[in-house]
């Protein structure tokens, strides 16, 4: 039985902050098939297209029939723990700080035996669910979970190393003026975040929901204007060391492409709020977050970008908006590489049109702000990196995987 986490004590200010370390992160190119699946929360192994053998560890050819036609595919993740051991001494700096650490061998029902980290509620001889997770260094690793959910299982220390659970963490929602920002504040409060800082720009300007927002449990309103470098810096100077999960809810949705728009005012605003806003946040909050990736129960854990799925393929009806989102996606990839050594995950959450004013004329399916917020919390609990929320996002993901040129063409018609 997992011991429930207790709220961490206030930090002793005389103690040095433990710096982030990563387990070994080098993987073969083929093994990044596991990275891709783990990033999105799928369980995939290589399957031989010729003899149908399921293959693990990752190889360039099928060990059964020597065919080179092996491809990652979803497979069943059930198995039995054959053996377990507890590592008490390690030469790896990352594990030295975290022993005792349980590992074991799991015989999957689909064939292979996998050496995996063991969740505390999994014992030798028991049935287990195997998952691939991205560890603190962003590399895919196997972890065996109990067959059925157990009480407090999210609090298991080994599991928590691989997730970004908001429980007892301090969260910054960057824009509370929007429906999405407010839904996010509610979702994180319900998920047990210790503090939910919610940024509000232009406090002199009323907004829908402004009275309900401060009433949400553990919400603290902070002045934050993502278009104002000084405002972002000031908040980071005061609270940067207390932000464990940052969720950038800034949005600027306006219809229109390139030619039809008259002038650049709106395009500049889009880039200022979205792209430059992200850069400002990265510069102001990135250093402290990247230094606090191993800072105990409430270590810095995740930087969350909310991105239109049209960052992946331009939607000409909202063409300039899509271009801005694409810039944000590119920046997020850079930020991911920059924060990886700090043990902080950069999570990109893709969605289609939202159930908000600026998509008023767009027919359903649309994503409700609360749905998006719950998806973000859920994905953090699972430690994902790339998340697709709603039918439009899922559809575009699938179609892009099949034929990106066709999507580009169809979406503009």
């Amino acid at each position, binding site marked *: 039985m997992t011991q429930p986490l207790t709220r961490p004590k206030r930090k002793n200010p005389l103690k040095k902050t433990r710096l982030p370390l990563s387990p070994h992160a080098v993987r073969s190119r083929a093994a990044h098939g596991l990275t891709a699946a783990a990033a999105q929360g799928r369980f995939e192994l290589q399957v031989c297209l010729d003899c149908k053998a399921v293959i693990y560890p990752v190889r360039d050819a099928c060990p059964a029939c020597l065919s080179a036609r092996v491809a990652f595919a979803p497979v069943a993740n059930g198995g039995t723990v054959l053996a377990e051991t507890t590592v008490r001494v390690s030469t790896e700096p990352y594990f030295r700080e975290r022993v005792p650490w349980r590992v074991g061998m799991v015989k999957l029902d689909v064939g292979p035996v996998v050496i995996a980290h063991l969740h505390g509620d999994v014992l030798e001889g028991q049935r287990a669910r195997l998952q691939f997770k991205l560890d603190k260094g962003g590399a895919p690793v196997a972890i065996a979970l109990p067959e059925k959910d157990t009480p407090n299982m999210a609090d298991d220390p080994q599991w928590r190393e691989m997730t970004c659970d908001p429980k007892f963490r301090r969260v910054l929602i960057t824009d509370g003026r929007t429906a999405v920002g407010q839904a996010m504040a509610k979702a994180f409060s319900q998920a047990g975040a210790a503090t939910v800082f919610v940024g509000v720009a232009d406090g002199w300007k009323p907004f829908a929901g402004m009275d309900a927002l401060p009433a949400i449990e553990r919400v603290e309103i902070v002045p934050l204007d993502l278009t104002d470098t000084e405002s972002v810096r000031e908040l980071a100077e005061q609270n940067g060391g207390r932000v464990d999960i940052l969720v950038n809810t800034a949005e600027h949705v306006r219809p229109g492409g390139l030619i039809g728009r008259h002038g650049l005012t*709106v395009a500049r605003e889009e880039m200022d709020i979205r792209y430059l806003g992200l850069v400002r946040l990265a510069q102001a909050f990135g250093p402290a977050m990247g230094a606090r990736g191993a800072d105990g129960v409430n270590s810095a854990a995740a930087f969350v970008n909310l991105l239109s799925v049209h960052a992946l393929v331009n939607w000409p009806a909202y063409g300039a908006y899509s271009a801005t989102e694409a810039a944000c996606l590119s920046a997020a990839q850079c930020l991911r590489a920059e924060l990886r050594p700090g043990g902080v995950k950069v999570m990109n959450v893709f969605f289609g049109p939202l159930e908000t004013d600026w998509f008023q004329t767009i027919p359903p399916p649309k994503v409700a702000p609360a749905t998006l917020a719950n998806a973000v919390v859920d994905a953090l609990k699972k430690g994902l990196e790339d998340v697709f929320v709603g039918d439009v996002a899922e559809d575009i993901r699938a179609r892009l995987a099949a034929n990106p040129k066709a999507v580009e063409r169809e979406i503009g018609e």
Partner: protein
Amino acid sequence: MAFNLRSFALGIADGSIKVIDLTHTLSQEFPTIVLPPEFGQCAPFRMEEVSRYDERGPAWYWNNITVGEHTGTHFDAPIHWISGKDLANNSVDTIDPAKFIAPAAVIDCSQECAADADFMLTVPFVESWERQHGRIEAGNWVLLRTDWSKRPYAGYAGLRDDGAHTPGPTPAVVKWLVEERDVHGFGTETIGTDYGQGQHFNPPYPAHFYMHGKGRFGLQCLTNLDLLPAKGAVIFAAPLKIKQGSGSPLRVLALLGQDAG
């Protein structure tokens, strides 16, 4: 007129001519006018450090700034409004620079505004002011003292469900000031020269429509009007020389001689 500029300069130096700053600091937080979101918006003041004695420039500190022409304490040129679009010399770069210096009549309605955010300046109110202070002379700025500049930003912007609630002039009084008093322009402490709900007047935004339609100027987001006498202050308000500019942030100074008051 016999006049001695040297004694003017000496008067400034020895303090017998007082210089009062009517300008708000250009800051990121200061409210900018809010239009419905489907319209283009005026950019707020923003500042990016270029260097500060660091690796970006070891011995010097400087910033790049961005503003709209109507950000912070600013000047409105006639070309700003459609009614003034065809006038000669209607943009900040072509206005006769002599017009950047003019006397001011300051109408104090701060008490009325304290009680009523929707206070409207009317012709009878100005006539009553004139009975006390004398007729507004041609070529004077008319500055509306509301003490609005002393309000916290939320009250200053005055935004409610139905838009801004801030004091301003009726269409009749603006027309009257231009046609019957031949004023130089109209200046306010509020975000615009017009009443907060001025879009519902006929014509909408009369301070803009009539003033600029007759080649007169606007000043807004002024402060320290409570330090000015009803008559006698001289206003120095020279906008940036922006090519075809509709206005500009600027430093507005009031000069007070010993004759003022």
